[in-house]
């Protein structure tokens, strides 16, 4: 009786440990040489709120075979942050903002991508009213895998781009 109880308890412990030890892969990517390839275009609604659409930031991923990161951004203006530097702030518009990392693998490229669900953008205005992205920070990103109906969440991530150095930063991806 005692022996059976011990075996049952051991099994229970093994199952509990197995459940808790689900592996999570973390990838830290260093972003370099980033630049705003397409500035964001402003659209002001009837209430006077300006939303910037279609910013495209592109750069390299250090330490891998040639890799490229992209940030496709839409954000809502929150006002002037630095009058001297002409720096404005905005909040990320979700799910209209997304990220991707493309790395070459043999003759093919492999892309990891997802949505930026929340975050903050700083930007500078161009003479034509469009906006060049300076920095993007986000603690809430979703990595998606598959397409349309077979699409599923593959993990999440965080982003810190352009805050410490222009055009550089860190993208951390947590795969489930």
């Amino acid at each position, binding site marked *: 009786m005692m022996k059976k109880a011990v075996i049952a308890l051991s099994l229970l412990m093994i199952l509990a440990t197995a459940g808790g030890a689900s592996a999570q892969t973390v990838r830290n990517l260093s972003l370099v040489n980033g630049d705003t*390839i*397409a500035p964001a*275009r402003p659209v002001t609604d009837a209430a006077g709120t300006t939303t910037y659409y279609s910013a495209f930031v592109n750069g390299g991923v250090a330490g891998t075979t040639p890799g490229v990161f*992209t940030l496709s951004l839409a954000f809502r203006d929150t006002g002037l942050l630095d009058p001297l530097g002409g720096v404005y702030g905005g909040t990320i518009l979700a799910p209209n903002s*997304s990220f991707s990392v493309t790395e*070459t693998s043999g003759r093919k490229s492999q892309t990891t991508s997802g*949505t930026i669900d929340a975050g903050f953008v700083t930007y500078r205005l161009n003479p034509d009213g469009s906006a060049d992205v300076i920095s993007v920070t986000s603690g809430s990103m979703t990595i998606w895998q598959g397409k349309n109906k077979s699409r599923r969440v593959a993990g999440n991530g965080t982003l810190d781009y352009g805050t410490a150095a222009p055009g550089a930063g860190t993208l951390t991806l947590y795969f489930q």
Partner: protein
Amino acid sequence: MLKTHRHTHGRRSVLVTFALLAAALLLTAGRAQAQVVRTVDKTFTDTLINQCTGETIAFTGTMTTTSSTHDNGWRTNFRFTTDVKAKGVVTIDAFGQPVTYGASYKVQTRVQSVNDQLDPVTYPFTQSQAVDMKLVGTGSENNFFFRFNVRLQINANGDLTVFKETADLRCENTLIFNGTISPILKTPYIIQPVLDY
């Protein structure tokens, strides 16, 4: 008689169709407002980094920006296209050092974005962005090709129903990558040039 009747009937139906079409056009014209703005900058100068090599290319050329807004009274559709065609030279090498007589490149980029926005902003919503970048060196220089597409759709409930992102990166004849010299020369798709000396 029958023929005449048919003719009259035919004319009537044609007239009715025209009247309906005219009415539809008038109604649509009253609501739809399209605006297209195209600007051409023939002296566009900028710098770009070849992500295959890490070299900085300073270029001069033409940038054409076309934006169109179509508002039918309840939905606004924006389209933005930016085309850059330019020629440039390497001014900073992969090691971060200035270059006096750098290699020449042709630069060609196109960014195309389409956004829907409802008045007031609600769902459903569609957004797409397509990017095509080409940096082509003369002769056997390091070429960089990058294509990127993203498309998303949000349904009336605010749920993301389509999220599709594709990208294609190609590095050709890459001799240098991130400050490291590759041992393989003039081979297409040389993409692993990190060496330990």
